[in-house]
């Protein structure tokens, strides 16, 4: 991915995984997200960029209904995953979150062993019949999180004892352990140093083979490096959405151009 020129970068597949139509989000009286329409494709990295407070994280948290935990938050409009409306009454947010995994801004491993961190999701979803299967799932997840080699000898050491970058990759491993179809990442590298960031970015690119990845980032360079599609949010509006190459080289909207060139934000 690092070699492909920006202009020639395109999404590989054209299946729409998540589709949002006319989404409004309110925090009490505050209208945080206004009329957002977006189609997120499968096996693609979609980046949400925009200045602080523009609503990109809020929108991301709508996609797995993490906003449900905030009492005053209200979501209107229609968000579908594979055609199912996720805000339908029949949808259990717990099942949805197993399907749409999430990685948070600050690495937040459970204060348990590395093994237990990864095994927790599969355990509560009943994915393993016995210890051997669980071991296998944990190893697969840790390998996919590109951290297996570093932790395989100390699976029962506390997850909180790892370095920041390792913790974040552990969190990614934990998120992929439940075999989700979509992976949401809320500024996954903002607490990491450049080397750890590079490792996580590389990992994100690998994850694209299997998942639809949505990443919120403050760093435009990161968006340009890892994503195929980019959405630019500003003051609660989705200003522009398109191929990453096009957004960064030839934005249609004046505001996008100003943000990318550093004049606002």
């Amino acid at each position, binding site marked *: 991915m690092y070699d492909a020129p920006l202009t020639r970068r395109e999404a590989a597949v054209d299946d729409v995984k998540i589709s949002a139509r006319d989404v409004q989000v309110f925090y009490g009286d505050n209208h945080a997200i206004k009329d957002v329409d977006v189609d997120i494709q499968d096996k693609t990295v979609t980046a949400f960029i925009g200045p602080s407070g523009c609503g990109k994280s809020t929108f991301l948290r709508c996609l797995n209904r993490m906003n449900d935990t905030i009492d005053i938050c209200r979501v209107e409009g229609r968000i579908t995953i594979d055609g199912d409306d996720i805000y339908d009454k029949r949808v259990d947010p717990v099942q949805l979150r197993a399907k749409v*995994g999430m990685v948070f801004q600050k690495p*937040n491993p459970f*204060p348990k062993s590395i093994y237990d961190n990864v095994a*927790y999701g599969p355990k*509560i979803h009943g994915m393993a019949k016995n210890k051997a299967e669980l071991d296998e799932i944990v190893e697969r997840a840790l390998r996919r999180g590109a951290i297996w080699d570093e932790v395989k000898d100390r699976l029962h050491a506390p997850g909180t004892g790892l370095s920041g970058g390792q913790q974040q990759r552990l969190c990614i491993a934990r998120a992929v352990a439940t075999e989700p179809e979509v992976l949401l990442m809320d500024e996954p590298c903002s607490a990491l140093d450049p080397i750890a960031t590079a490792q996580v970015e590389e990992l994100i690119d690998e994850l694209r083979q299997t998942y639809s990845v949505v990443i919120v980032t403050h760093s435009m360079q990161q968006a340009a490096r890892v994503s195929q599609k980019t959405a630019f949010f500003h003051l609660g509006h989705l200003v522009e959405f398109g191929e990453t190459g096009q957004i960064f080289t030839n934005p249609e909207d004046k505001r996008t151009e100003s943000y990318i060139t550093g004049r606002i934000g």
Partner: protein
Amino acid sequence: MSDASLAPAASPRARRSLMETDAHTAKRNAAEKRFRLYGVAAICAGLFFLVVLLTSILGNGLSAFQQTFITTQVFLDPAKLDKAGNRDPDDIRKVSTFGYTPLIQNAVFEEVTSRNIETPLDSAKDMKALISASAAAQVRDFVIANPDRIGETVEFRILAASRVDGYLKDRVFREDVARDKNIDAEHLDLTDALVSAGVIAKQFNTSFIFGSDASESRAESAGLGVSMLGSFFMMLVVLVLALPIGVAASIYLEEFAPQNRFTDLIEVNISNLAAVPSIVFGILGLAVFIQFAHLPQSAPIVGGLVLTLMTLPTIIISTRASLKSVPPSIRDAALGVGASKMQAVFHHVLPLAMPGILTGTIIGLAQALGETAPLLLIGMVGYIATNYPDGFVSGFMDPNSAMPAQIYEWAKRADPAYYERAWGGIIILLVFLLTMNLIAILLRRRFERRW
């Protein structure tokens, strides 16, 4: 940001060397130094009072753990104790303590005469002032338990009378005995002689720790044991009710309840309840549990229920505080992998909050253990003549006292012999409280995890 601010502006303050302190800095440093001094002074004052408290408690109370005993050979006269001669327990029981008193007096008189101690007291009856009124009961209990020993001479360690005990502990003085109808100078002389003969001696007083309370005239046999059991049964009620109710209420309020006016109101009221004087809970318990629900008076179950009401706010407040201190990122992480709200709380949040919850609970229990005022109103303070409850149910339902109530009761009594017992009771109570605090600290250490 304008470029102008980047240019080195001319400093309004005159250039001076770093080696000289300016007036402003000197003032600030002085203020800091003063503040440190205040702190050290405050801590010293606190330590001073702690030392005063501890020395006065130990100084006054340690003597309660020693009691004066008379070691003597009592002849269990079959002619008096078992007139029928068939060792029938029912017949033996018919002989009251009055039947035993002469035997004990004879035995003590025998100790005096056999040692050729010179004393104007020349009859067995004169020994009465030396012997505790509970000695007869002690011998009688022994005989009822071992009827086959009747006819033998058995060595007993009987309690000396309270005045004799007081004389050995420098509480009763020769100058004062003229005004004391319970003892006189001759008996004190005899006591001195028996002490040097080794018949009368101070020994460790187990019955002070494990025994039951005694009537006002028998200070020497009063103990804290039964009221300790009363406290134990009350704490059991508090633990069984307050911990689950308190923890469940706080988990619901903190993690599940919607934030609205109603829950705000509940929150404010819980905080207010924590500050309600405990006597108010006492009168509430009197009205609700005794007058309305007709639970027995003076019973540990009522005391436990009242103390539960009193402890609940403490437990709820500390539990909520420790739930709040669990970082929200842990909840997000659990929800993010598809845990339900309840799984997130019980698998992740609760274990992390556990040390705080346990500490709060134990502190609440310790507070309840030391509480006296509400017990006044439900009849647990006063001379409650009870022996050990025979079983769990009677432990909850039979009249009993509690440790602090017993101490209060002793402190109130006229006989100065109860004074040292009140202080001694405080030592035992403090040992319990310190132990509970120690357990709280150990549990916190044990369960503490970092994140």
